[in-house]
Structures are given as C-alpha cells and as structure tokens.
C-alpha cells in the first residue's frame, strides 16, 4: 500500500511546505518605518519631508487580506476593498513647489487636492466606483473630494501608469485609471487630523509628535500625501505586499521667520518641539539631513554629530546624507534636537536648477478669449522625451487647432491624445508626447474661448475667478541633480541606499512635476441685477406710468346741479337735513361737500384704469 503512495509524497510535501510558507508570510508582522528628510534649499529655505511607510505582506487582490488588520488602518482598507482599488494616490497641498529654486521633492504635488486611482481589472463599472470612492475618501480626510465628478475627471492615456506592481495582462492603455484634481481645495488642520490618525502611533510618539499645525500652515509650502500600491514583498518579487506611504512635506523660510535673520535652524525652530521618542512600533526611525552641498562643512555644522554619514551614487550624481538613528539618540540623550549652525558670515546653500522645470501662465486679455502657455525648460545636455498632460474645465473652450509646440521658433513634432470637453459633463483632456531638445525651452501654447455659465452655476464667490488645475509633466531623466525621490521598489527613503539594480548601466529616474495652477475670470453677471431691474421697473411704473395715465385718461367736467341725483346723494341730503339742527356744524360741513361734488369722475374711465393696473402687475 505504501509503494503506490510514494510518487505522490514529494507533491504532498511541496504543497505542505507551500502552505507553511504561505501561512508564515501571512503571520509576518506588518512593517512600519518612520523617516524624516531635511534638505536645506536655496536662499535659506529648509525642506522637511516626513515619510511613514507601512508594508503589509499580503496581496491587495486577495479579498481575505482585508478581514484582519494589524498596522494598516482599517478605515482605509475597507474603502480600498469596497471599491476594488489597486492603487490610490492622494495629495492635499497648500502652496506651490518652486522646482527651479528648490529642485524636486520626494512626492510632487499640485496646489489643492489631487487624486488618481487604478482600479482592479475586475471592477466593471469604473465610473460608478470612482464616484463612490471620492465620496468615501472625502469623508475619510474631511476634504471636498466629492467635487471630483465627471466634470473634472479624466482617464489618462499615457501619463499616470501604475506606480506599483501590475499584472502583465494590464494593457498599457487600460481604462481602469481615473485622475482628478481640485486646484481650489483648501488644506487646513482638519485635513491633518484624520490623516495623522491613520498612523500607528498617531501623533503620540515618534516623528509625528513634531506635527504642529501652526508651524505647517505658516510655512511656504505644505503637502499631505497618501499613496497605496502593491509592491514586492521580497527581493525576488515572488509575493505581493501592500505599501501605504504617508508623507508630509513642509518648506520653511528660515531666514525671514527668524527674528535675527540668521539661517540657523534646529528641529525646535522648524516644528516647535524637539524629539523625545521614536514610535515603539516602528522598525526603523531615522532622520536624514541632506549634506550633499556641505560635505566639507563649508556652509554649516550639524550638532549632534550623526550616527553615520552615508554617500550614495545615483546615476551620475553623488548624494551625501547625515543619518540619525532616533531611537539611539532618544534612549541615550533623552531628546534629539538636530541643529545646523552656519559659519560666519553665513554662506547659504545654492541649488542648481533641476533638469526639467516649467512655467505656465495665462495669455491674452479681456473676457472673451485667452490662451495658456507652458514653457518647459530642459537643462540637460541631451534630448529628453516627456509626457505633458493638461486637464481644463469645459468652460474654457480649447481651440485645438491653435495648439502649437515650438522650440526656438521651430515647430516640434509631437504625438497627441485629445478628448474635447462636453458642456457640463466632461473636461478637456490633452496629452502630448514630445522631445525637448538639449539645453532649450519648449513652449506649448493653445488658446481658448470663455464660455457663459448659467446663472445658477456660478459659485458664491464668482468674482474671485475659476481655477484651472496644474499640468503634469512626466519624464524619465538620466540625472539625479536635486532629486530626492526613492526608487520604485519602495517608498522608504532608506531604500535609496540599496544597491542599484544590476545591468542598469544608464539608470533613469522618474520625474513627475506639476506646473502652476491658473486662475481665469469668466464673464460674471451682476447677480443683483434682476432685483435692481424689478425695483426700477416698479418705480417707473408707479411714478411715471401711474401719473401720466391718470392725467391722460381723467376728464374734468363741470358739475351740473340740475342733473338727476343718484341714490347716494339723496341719502346724503336726507342726513344733512337731520343734522341741520346744530347750525355751526352744518355751515362748516356744507362747504367742503360742495367742493367735492364739483368734480365728478367718469365711471368708465375708472374701470379702464383698474384693468391697466392689473396688466402692469402681471408683467412685473
């Protein structure tokens, strides 16, 4: 009996081992890391980027994953599984990131709110899922994302490919992606509160204790990001994991906010508090200070000295970081307050402009037509191909025939994907694929006509103007000049130190930048006009028409006392006879009565006047 069973034994064993490995991988704890990157920018600005990464070793496609939660927030997980989300990228930003001065941030974000989502291929009704998802997300983060309806949502064709793992069966032109932006969205403390509640330590311990709404909102730029995507669980990438990356970026103008105008900064001055603890749940808690431009301490000195100083080579450029292990410092010294003291006289760090940066603006004048120009600078010494995506509201009617892409006076060939708007239901969607010549400025320009809105479509502050969301430029650049983004494999900042993938002799780095959002004014009516018109008309009717009509239709006829008396005057006469007993009152009473009776109005005219009045009241 045992002999025939033996061929099946290895298979059984394999299945058994497979089950064990599966169960151990499920039982593996989620991994949470907290990191803070501080980078001194030009002109005394300091960029602080908080990066909280939760890696959940489970597949986002497996429904059983979402029946038990450990460190991953359940409120978010339920939303993801309910609407079949594969990837979700949300950013809420106040202020504009100035690429030319500040280089590239870790996660680029446009002013206002931006949301783009890849749905699982199994989701059938994607538009319906998107509508429900934006409602759920807006409830989760106290934002007005529910305004991302079909009027401000597009299906990007080339830009916004999945950042995480995607199956090979996903076509490159999949329809299961949605992109929407709200450039007017306000970001305030009520957005930070629910966002930080998703962190395993909330803001009770660890780097999140540095969150101080007053300092963030006084800063020049402040951005909250939340990114969920499937990534590799291991190096070999045989298993999937879910990565939740929460990031908070702040740019502080140290020089102008300090009382003495000194460029010195410390954690206390940036965030109002020093660090006393690391999040106990975090596998790693580090602070990195970018000292690429200050390796020889020519500009400033850091105290305390870092745990290690690490230099990495990414592409052609080297980056040096002073790395502090928060746990080690807070255990030995109780507090960690990194301080940068500048040499006297202070020499501020100057960054060179990054490879690609843009400037976008409105052209033209008046309230009828207008144009949008986007200048795209390429500072590389090689040609660079980019993707340009523009999303315009329906009421800026784009004239597609005016689209021109010009470099140095010469037209640049481009590939275009354009979906024209439909009034009140779909925005304009313009995507371009073009090549920027080396060391040049390329101008993308088109014109538009401003549409009239219906008077109920105007917002309460219509005279403020209407926002046009940022254009998005995506490129794979060979340079890492002022580049801070982590590699694609992980959102953790320390993954920059990981070995470069083998065989990548010419690595390329994903740059996605957002241009300025624009404000256009539309022809706006005077909303009190109907009221004014009614008032004016009524006044005219009452004063002018009434008196003129009265004058023109009233006839004065002499009273003939010999004419036949009516019933009323008979009664009057009778009453006067009775009251004649007192002579004084009778004498006074008779005179006015006769004057009154001197004018007799014609009854026909009276009725004519009455009907006219009825007419005029109906019109108004």
């Amino acid at each position, binding site marked *: 009996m045992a002999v025939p069973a033996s061929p099946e034994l290895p298979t059984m064993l394999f299945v058994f081992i497979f089950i064990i490995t599966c169960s151990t991988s499920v039982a593996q704890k989620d991994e949470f890391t907290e990191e803070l990157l501080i980078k001194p920018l030009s002109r005394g600005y300091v960029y602080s980027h908080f990066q909280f990464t939760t890696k959940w070793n489970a597949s986002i496609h497996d429904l059983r994953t979402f029946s038990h939660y450990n460190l991953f927030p359940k409120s978010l997980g339920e939303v993801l599984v309910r609407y079949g989300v594969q990837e979700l990228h949300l950013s809420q930003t106040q202020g504009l990131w100035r690429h030319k001065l500040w280089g590239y941030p870790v996660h680029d974000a446009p002013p206002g709110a931006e949301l783009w989502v890849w749905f699982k291929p199994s989701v059938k009704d994607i538009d319906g899922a998107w509508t429900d998802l934006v409602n759920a997300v807006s409830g989760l983060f106290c934002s007005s994302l529910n305004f991302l309806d079909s009027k401000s949502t597009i299906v990007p064709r080339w830009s916004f490919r999945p950042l995480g793992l995607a*199956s090979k069966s996903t076509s490159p032109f999949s329809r299961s992606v949605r992109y929407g932006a709200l450039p007017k969205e306000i970001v305030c403390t009520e957005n930070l*509160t629910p966002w930080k509640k998703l962190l395993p330590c909330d803001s009770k311990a660890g780097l999140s204790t540095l969150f101080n709404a007053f300092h963030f909102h006084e800063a020049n730029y402040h951005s909250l990001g939340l990114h969920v995507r499937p990534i590799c669980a291991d190096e070999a990438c045989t298993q999937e994991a879910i990565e939740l990356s929460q990031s908070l970026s702040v740019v502080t103008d140290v020089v102008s906010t300090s009382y003495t105008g000194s460029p010195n900064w410390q954690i206390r001055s940036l965030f109002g508090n020093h660090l006393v603890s690391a999040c106990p749940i975090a596998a790693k808690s580090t602070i990195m200070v970018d000292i690429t431009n200050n390796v020889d301490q020519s500009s400033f000195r850091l105290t305390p000295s870092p745990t290690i100083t690490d230099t990495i080579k990414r592409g052609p450029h080297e980056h040096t970081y002073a790395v502090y292990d928060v746990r080690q410092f807070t255990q030995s010294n109780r507090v960690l307050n990194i301080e940068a003291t500048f040499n006297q006289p202070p020499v501020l760090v100057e960054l060179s402009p990054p490879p690609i940066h843009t400037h976008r603006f409105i052209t033209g004048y008046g309230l009828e037509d207008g144009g949008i120009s986007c200048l795209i600078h390429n500072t590389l010494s090689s040609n660079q191909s980019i993707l340009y995506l523009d999303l315009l509201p329906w009421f800026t009617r784009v004239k597609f025939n005016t689209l021109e892409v010009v470099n140095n006076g010469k037209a640049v060939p481009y590939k275009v994907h354009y979906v024209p708007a439909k009034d009140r239901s779909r925005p304009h969607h313009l995507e371009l694929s073009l090549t920027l010549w080396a060391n040049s400025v390329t101008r993308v320009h088109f014109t538009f006509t401003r549409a009239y809105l219906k008077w109920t479509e105007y917002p309460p502050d219509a005279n403020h103007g209407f926002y046009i969301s940022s254009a998005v430029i995506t490129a794979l650049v060979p340079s890492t000049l002022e580049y801070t983004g982590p590699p694609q494999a992980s959102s953790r900042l320390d993954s920059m130190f990981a070995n470069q993938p083998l065989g990548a002799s010419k690595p390329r780095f994903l740059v996605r930048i957002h241009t300025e959002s624009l404000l256009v004014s539309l022809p706006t009516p005077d909303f009190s006009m109907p009221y004014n018109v009614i008032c004016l008309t009524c006044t005219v009717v009452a004063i002018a028409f009434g008196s003129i009509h009265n004058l023109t239709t009233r006839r004065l006829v002499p009273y003939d006392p010999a004419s036949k008396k009516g019933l009323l005057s008979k009664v009057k006469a009778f009453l006067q006879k009775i009251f004649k007993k007192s002579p004084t009152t009778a004498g006074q009473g008779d005179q006015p009565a006769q004057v009154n009776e001197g004018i007799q109005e014609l009854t026909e005219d009276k009725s004519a006047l009455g009907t006219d009045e009825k007419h005029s009241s109906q019109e108004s």
Partner: protein
Amino acid sequence: MATPCINKFSRLTAVVFIFSISCFQGFVYSNSATNVDSVEDFFKSGHTNNWAVLVDTSRFWFNYRHVANVLSVYRSVKRLGIPDSQIILMVADDMACNPRNPRPATVFNNANQNINVYGDDVEVDYRGYEVTVENFIRVLTGRLPPSTPRSKRLLSDERSNILVYMTGHGGDGFLKFQDAEEVSSVELADAFEQMWQKQRYHELFFMIDTCQAESMFQKFYSPNLLAVASSRVGEDSLSHHVDPALGVYVIDRYTYYALEFLETVKPGSKKTMAQFFKVCPKHHCISTVSTRTDLFKRNVTDTLLTDFFGGVRNVELLTETVSLDKIDLPPNNDLTNSCSKDSCATNENTKFTFPDQIPKVLI
C-alpha cells in the same frame, strides 16, 4: 365627521396610555424604593443619544465672527461629551487657513486669544461650497446619495436629542447661505416635520444667532421642538467686539454670552434650559432673546441643558448571555471563482514586475 371621531379615539388611547405609564411608574416606585432617584433620572431624559448639527452659512473674511460662533459651540458640545462622529459641522469658508489670517490654523473667539477654537482636533464635515441649502436640508432629512460617508450623515433615531445651531446673515423669514441662496422659515419647519415623521429625533433644540432670528422658528409646527433666537423680528443681532489684530469682529453678542454660560457647565451639571434662556438679557445683547416652548412637552425649568449640549450613552445591561456565531471566512474556492484572471495571479508562482512609467510605444 370622521375627524372628531378620530380625535376622540386618540384622546381616549392617550388617557389609557398615560394611565398605564403611571401604573408602571407606581410599580417601579413600589418595587425599588431605594433607587428612586436614579430610576427617575433614567426615565426623565427619554433619549439615548445626542447629535449636533452646527451650521455657519457665511462666506468671506469679514464674516469671521460667524465661523468663530459655530466653532465655539462645536468646542462646547465636544467638551460636554458629544463625539465628533455625532457632530455635523458645516463651515462655509475657511478662516483658519485664510491668507488674511495673521495666525494661520487658528480661529479665536476673543481678542484676548485665550482659546483657539479651531484646535488640532477639529473635523469639518461640510466645508466651502458644500454648505448649501440643499445639503443642509438633505442632512436633516437623511435624503443623501447612497455613497455619502458616515461622517456626513445625521444618523439619528427616534431616541436622539438633536441640537441645531445656525449662524449667518438673515432677515424676516430667511437665512442666507453663502451670500448666494437662502433657506426660508417655512422650508426649515417642513424639514423638521419630515424629520419627525421619519422618527429622526426625540427632542430637537434649535438655536439661531442672526438678525430677526425669531422669524426662523415662528413657522415650526412639529412636536418636541424647543427654540431660542438671538433677536426678535425687526431687530438686528449685533456682534460683540473686534480684534484689532485681525481687523474683524470675532464673535456675536448672543453666542458670546451663551458661551460664557456654557463654559460653566460641566458634564454632570444640573443647569436647566430655563437658565440658559436667560443668559443674554437685553442690556447685554441689545437685541431681545426670543424663545419658543409651546411645542416642547416638558417644562424648560426641569429640562437639563446637558440633554442637548451633552452626550449620553445609556448602557443597557443584559442578564442573559448572548452567544455569537463564529463567522467563517469564505472558503478559498469561492474567492477563486469571483476573482478575475488578474487577481488570481498570486496562485501561480510568477514574478511580478513594475510597469514602464512611459509606455514603450512612445519612446
């Protein structure tokens, strides 16, 4: 002919009902003479949960005081125990992060700047353009789209006491929303009636601080409504004081004195609504505070302030054990059937890849 019959009948049933209640109460008293006080307390309030709908209807920086009004009330009800999940806060404009605010992320209701009413823990449910008459009426009546998140819904029931606080610019019979539209007193009264018919409240306290505020509750006709307004018809509601650093008035008079009173209230307080109605005498408010109590069944001198401003969580203890069934996860087969080609890829021992960020066809 039919109507009086029904009336007579209902009166009869009401009498029977009251009789039965009194019998029942007598039974309770006789049975537990020692716990009389606590039992009485338990039956008196008649509600099991508290909700608050706080609405600021004014946009623009010069209406800072209305935002400060509503946030102050928000802070008070939160302090007295209504959780954020049961407060619907509608703020029509962003004052805290307004570029004109010299102290970003703060809203103060006093020039002394003792209390930042915006705080670090504020959850605004409807903000900016979302504050419309339509949304307000929909929240009250519960007629919201199915995908509306819980935080934006008034999930009250027939045992809920609701506080509705409104502030903004109003006139005789209307309250302006966002300077663009207005809700009329008739619409509001009908919305409350609809709430009553749908058993969405047990008792409702309506509080309004606006000019001619009294006109907003004159049309109410639904039972168990209690209302207070900052001014009579024909009167203006005035602001309290200006903060020279902000350049705007920071709070309205009625709300200022109401808050002064609320600050003295602690969660277990025995202060009554009658005391609350007297918080702003005419020499303080300049306008005449007006109340409406005819629709309210209880006596306001016996009604606790915390019945509306505080949160209760009456816990009912069960004596018997409830056994819960263990929910088994669906077996693997069910999931494989439901998943698509893509989602079942994990079963194969394949290597996953990151897709190209720029489609190959374009390069």
